[in-house]
């Protein structure tokens, strides 16, 4: 089974520029997640999609971050404009939800390391 694909793997931009990340989940996985992992911290959920609908975006800084999953498969996460504090690894994960209590595990992609200078 192919894993979660992400691109690019690395990106360096200047502050106030915009950037976009792409994710292709495991085939058949209905749920897709974007996480931000700042150095020395655990991943923090930014947004969760179920098919092409947003389930949770409570921790997404909506003034500068946006994400979409138009066809319920791959997804893009955009930052515009970027700030220095956005430097982090952006992880995409997917899962197949089963059961009433969400008995699932998430499969993670390799991440995109963003450096904002």
């Amino acid at each position, binding site marked *: 089974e192919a894993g979660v694909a992400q691109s690019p793997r690395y990106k360096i931009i200047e502050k106030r520029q915009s950037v976009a990340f792409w994710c292709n989940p495991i085939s058949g996985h209905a749920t897709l997640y974007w996480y931000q992992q700042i150095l020395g911290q655990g991943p923090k*959920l930014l947004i969760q999609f179920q098919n092409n609908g947003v389930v949770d975006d409570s921790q997404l800084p909506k003034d500068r971050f946006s994400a979409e999953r138009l066809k319920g498969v791959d997804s893009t996460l955009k930052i515009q404009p970027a700030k220095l504090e956005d430097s982090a690894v952006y992880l995409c994960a997917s899962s197949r939800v089963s059961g009433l209590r*969400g*008995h699932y595990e998430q499969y993670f992609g390799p991440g995109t390391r963003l450096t904002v200078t």
Partner: protein
Amino acid sequence: AQSVSQHNHHVILSEAASLELGCNYSYGGTVNLFWYVQYPGQHLQLLLKYFSGDPLVKGIKGFEAEFIKSKFSFNLRKPSVQWSDTAEYFCAVTVNNDMRFGAGTRLTVKP
């Protein structure tokens, strides 16, 4: 505030030593518990998970974890570590399909 706490930021062990990494959470109600591992240069991988049933769960590569509900804990253990276990370990808790991670524990195993 609701959180997931990993007690140790960095653990250094010699090969064959026993390992225990602590994880405590502060969420009430029904939770699902996970340990993920991130080897150097690789992506996060699932080590083991607990949903229900036997509170002692076994994962890959000889790891196990015990869910103690009364202590809100889900500590990770391995009787004898190897150099190849050098990695970052993350405890995670899901509540209502929302996964929260601890800050991670970096394990260094000296050969």
